[in-house]
């Protein structure tokens, strides 16, 4: 249908619209009109993606001067889903408007997902594919191949290169698969084609990293115009993504590897000196002139980019003391030596970048300014030395990464050296962490560069905290509730076991056998009463291991298995995938299954347990972060000092958002239904509970709080019976669905 939204004609591919979708569009439109940023929370299952796409593409149609839509997703799977939705929308718009509505939309992913080279695409890991590709496409390899036909090249890249700027994608919506099909058909490399086509596309969908990680963003997103709209979907963890993008961990192996790399580089330099001294000299001259390398190099050679942000690297010449290759290598050697010495510390050390630099200057004679350039300098050197196997020099790259970040930022970072893991104090496993404490650093350039940035997710509560964490001023902040025709989600707070004793994963209670038994009984009872799939989330792997062991000893596990099969998430991805696959199969064939998983794990973040795959999710405990972690402490301190966010507030916020994220897995659409049990007495407290997203809170009835196991069981049985009754999904009359006619009427509502 199409309708008029405050003067904008919106094309929406479905016949009905939820009222919250309407309000959501209104807010997005206002943000776009004001050329500002937006922060919007809308529960999953209300069609957030299609709402966003539909509004922004309609906006693009109405305002041709508007830039691209950059849609950032967390996973490739989500990217594909967005593209599918977009394809539907596109088909509808073309039906309504004809050719003029044609757009080019494509997803961009790593080489691993786009490569169609017969041998390289078979390589397992992402790094291997990248390195393999470079071996076949680097400029010097290609120029060498021009003389020596024995050198292997990638046919697809050559095909693409031959076409040059004429290699274009016709308008349409391309998923990764479509890109590969198209590439095979034309004999062009889909990866480079996609990168090339970004300039022409109306909608680009790619991973967060491409926007937030300066190493990648510098390469990919550099040429995007200011008028673009950037959307971060599922952005509830965006602060963590930002922090990760700017954090570096160095271990003993890294430093050892870096040392080996240095030796090897030294040999290569010597060799070049003997054979091709001109090259080194040319490089020296270039550095003297202070040409920033980036931008002058061919696209396919850009394998590394600076980890710091473009604005922070002054466009100045590389300092004289590292311009010569051998000087630079000596400089790095000193740096690695210094780091090794620091790593040998016997107790935990934690300091800010300034004192670190001071110490570095005093003991190794390295100053911050030089350090700042070490990443760029290494990059330049490797190009000069024609090194294609970047993977081999991974360790050294990491060290330079570290150096540049330390040299660049004096604020918002902490350097923490831990000689051993807290949990295993006898095993020496030193690690030096350069931890970014300020999530606003990485996202700041995005806010500054682009006209509108929309941050959205199903769980952004409490929504006031995000602008403070990310340090920006959104023009619209809104949290939408879900309009429901029936209570399709049933949250409960269970605070007591069947013996009326409180349950909690609080540190002093978690190993109490009574609590463990109560938790176990809860699952046994629920396994009897709930059909198909049940998902349990635990606060950590170690806690999950411990409790499963105890359950096994108590015979609880056996009882559960009388009713349902049990599957467990492990830290091994392949194992977990297999477990998930079998879990789904058990749900499909009516056997029923329980999946044990961990909050903050892979499953909690990315896997849906919708429909019969998850009729009940039990959140055992409050998933607080490991509070003794130095990084977390440093961050909490920083947040308190810089943004005046109380430690406790942040911890609770973070724990509750994880919990909400876990339980939110269970419902993905309005026709679905599911129960959520928060099994910890601490959820009973107002400060915890009130941080849950509004769409859960609004369904949490007073009578569903402070429950014991038997009461929860009673509610569950009643609820499941009620939900199994047939219901009328089309309820235009009740106002939970809007059709075209309803939208023609004046709209009085403002859902808040």
């Amino acid at each position, binding site marked *: 249908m199409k309708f008029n939204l405050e003067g904008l004609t919106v094309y929406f591919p479905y016949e009905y619209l939820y009222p919250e979708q309407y309000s959501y569009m209104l807010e997005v439109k206002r943000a776009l009109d004001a050329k500002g940023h937006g922060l919007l929370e809308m529960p999953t299952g209300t069609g957030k993606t299609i709402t966003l796409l539909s509004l922004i593409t309609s906006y693009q149609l109405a305002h041709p001067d508007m830039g691209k839509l950059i849609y950032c997703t967390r996973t490739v799977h989500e990217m594909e889903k967005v593209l599918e939705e977009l394809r539907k929308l596109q088909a509808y718009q073309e039906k309504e408007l004809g050719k003029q509505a044609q757009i080019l939309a494509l997803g961009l992913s790593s080489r691993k997902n786009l490569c169609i080279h017969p041998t390289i695409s078979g390589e397992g890991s992402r790094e291997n594919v990248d390195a393999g590709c470079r071996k076949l496409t680097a400029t010097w390899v290609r120029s060498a191949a021009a003389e020596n036909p024995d050198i292997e090249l990638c046919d697809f890249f050559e095909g693409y290169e031959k076409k040059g700027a004429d290699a274009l994608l016709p308008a349409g919506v391309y998923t990764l698969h479509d890109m590969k099909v198209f590439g095979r058909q034309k004999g062009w490399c889909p990866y480079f084609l996609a990168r090339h086509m970004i300039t022409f596309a109306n909608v680009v969908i790619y991973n967060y990293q491409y926007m937030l990680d300066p190493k990648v963003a510098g390469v990919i997103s550099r040429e995007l115009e200011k008028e673009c709209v950037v959307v971060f979907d599922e952005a509830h963890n965006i602060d963590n993504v930002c922090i990760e993008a700017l954090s570096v961990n160095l271990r003993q192996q890294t430093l050892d590897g870096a040392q080996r790399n240095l030796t090897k580089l030294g040999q290569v330099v010597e060799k070049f000196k003997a054979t091709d001294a001109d090259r080194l000299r040319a490089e020296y001259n270039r550095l003297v002139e202070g040409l920033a390398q980036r931008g002058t190099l061919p696209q396919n050679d850009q394998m590394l980019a600076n980890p710091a942000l473009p604005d922070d690297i002054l466009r100045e010449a590389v300092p004289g003391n590292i311009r010569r290759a051998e000087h630079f290598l000596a400089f790095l050697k000193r740096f690695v030596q210094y780091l090794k010495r620091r790593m040998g510390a016997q107790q935990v050390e934690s300091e800010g970048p300034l004192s670190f630099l001071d110490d570095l200057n005093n003991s190794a004679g390295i100053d911050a300014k030089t350090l700042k350039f070490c990443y760029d300098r290494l990059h330049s050197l490797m190009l000069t030395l024609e090194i294609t196997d970047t993977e081999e020099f991974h360790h050294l790259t990491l060290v330079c990464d570290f150096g540049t970040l330390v040299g660049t930022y004096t604020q918002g970072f902490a350097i923490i050296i831990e000689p051993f893991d807290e949990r295993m104090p006898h095993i020496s496993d030193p690690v030096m962490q350069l931890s970014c404490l300020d999530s606003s650093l990485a996202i700041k350039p995005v806010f500054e560069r682009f006209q509108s940035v929309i941050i959205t997710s199903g769980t952004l509560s409490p929504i006031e905290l995000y602008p403070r964490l990310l340090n920006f001023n959104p023009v619209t902040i809104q949290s939408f509730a879900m309009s429901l025709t029936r209570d399709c989600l049933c949250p409960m707070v269970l605070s007591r076991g069947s013996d009326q004793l409180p349950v909690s994963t609080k540190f002093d209670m978690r190993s109490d056998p009574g609590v463990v038994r109560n938790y176990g009984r809860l699952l046994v009872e629920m396994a*009897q*009463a*709930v*059909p*198909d799939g049940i998902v349990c989330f635990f606060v950590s792997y170690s806690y999950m291991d411990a409790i499963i062991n105890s359950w096994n000893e108590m015979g609880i596990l056996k009882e559960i298995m009388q*009713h*349902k099969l049990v599957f467990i998430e492990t830290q091994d991805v392949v194992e977990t995938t297999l477990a998930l696959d079998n879990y789904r199969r058990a*749900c*499909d*064939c*009516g*056997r*029923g299954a329980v999946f044990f998983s961990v909050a903050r794990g892979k499953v909690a973040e990315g896997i849906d347990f919708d*429909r*019969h795959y998850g*009729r009940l999710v039990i959140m055992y405990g409050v998933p607080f972060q490991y509070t003794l972690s130095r990084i977390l402490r440093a961050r909490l301190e920083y947040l308190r000092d810089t943004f005046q966010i109380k430690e406790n507030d942040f911890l609770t916020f973070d724990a509750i958002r994880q919990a909400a994220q876990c339980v939110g897995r269970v419902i993905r659409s309005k026709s679905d239904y599911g129960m959520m049990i928060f099994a910890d*007495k*601490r959820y*009973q*407290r*107002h400060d915890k509970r009130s941080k849950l997203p509004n769409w859960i809170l609004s369904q949490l*009835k*007073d*009578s569903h*709080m*402070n429950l014991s196991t038997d009461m929860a069981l*009673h509610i569950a*049985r009643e609820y*499941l*019976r*009620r*939900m*199994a*009754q*047939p219901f009328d999904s089309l309820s235009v009359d009740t106002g939970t669905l809007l059709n075209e006619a309803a939208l023609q009427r004046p709209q009085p509502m403002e859902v808040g």
Partner: protein
Amino acid sequence: MSPAGPHPQGPPADALLQDAEEDGDLEAEEAGRDARAWEREYADERSWEMLQEDDAGLLRALDVTAQQRERRRRHLAAPAARIRRGMIRYLVLVVDLSRAAAEVDFHPSRMAVVAALVEVFIREFFDQNPLSHLGIIALRAGVAQRLTELSGSPQSHITALKASLGADGEASLQNGLDLARAALAPIPAYGHREVVVVSSALTTCDPGDIHAAIAACKKHRIRCSVVGLAAEVYICATLARLTGGTYTIATSEGHLRDLLLEHAPPPPALQQDAPASLIRMGFPQRQPDGAASICACHADLRLDGAYVCPRCKARVCELPTECHVCSITLMSSPHLARSYHHLFPVPPYDEWQASSSSAALPATCFACQAGLPGVAGGATGVRLVCPRCARHFCFDCDAIVHESLHNCPGCECRPAAPDDPPG
């Protein structure tokens, strides 16, 4: 009240303090808590406010119009047009007697309730489908067990089920379906094959691939329906969806009864499900009592009235049956007539809309003489008009006419119109 000072039995003060800290706002919530489960039902509806005492001293609902409309929606939803139905049914009733059937959320236990209601269902089934056959399969301890073969005698099924109650082990839906399919394999083509599963369990433990069993049922045009006692199970929903059956979940004993009885009237059927054919049947006359003869069914000398097969003159004791000598189906015309109302349903009445010409309104229901709403001093509720004969009826008669009588009294008192049912 209690004197000031420490309570000897009370918890220590520090524990109290800790509790207060832990459960800070608990107390406030306790006050706002919902009523108990048994109070909630009444509290929500405030049903007493809807009552008034009528002149017979009975409590009557104040204005029942809305309520009556709601109730009418049910039979209005049923198709009024003459649709084809599977009149000759072969139904296998699969009763789940797994461990879950011993649960006591229905009183005294699920199993007992199911057994009692299945008895009601079986009687109703044969009442409404005299030409049909029924068999029972029990699911217990992982296997499916055939309690009765397909046959037309209600009593034998009921006895067999009652004799074998007892819950044990897991239920295997796949085994149940496979066995039912085997039982339904040899029936004649014109028969409609059906499986109704009464399921307590929320899980099925199958030896093989249940999806293959479902596909086989679909292929053999077996309509599988499931009545669940606890919650929606995906595989049951899939089974019902793929085979064209229904899947319903009972919320209470009364609801379970309704859901089971929904399977008593013949379901709508497609022509390809069972090709039409003419079946040869005998209509024996009842002999007066007192004439002694030997019956073919019990091989016994009987004195009471009996029926004689018109083809081979063998004597049978009850109808409907199959002649034991010549295998012809023996029927009486009332048996057939019991099913006719499915074929010629009474069109739903329309609710009368108030108009200006209320002066000439009949004050009483045409069928039962009860006072009708819409006139001065009349009752509350809805007034209904038959679209064919334009006579006015009360709400109760509407329900009677469409649910049990299947005749419109008004239409039966005037010459048959061309669109009226034949016969």
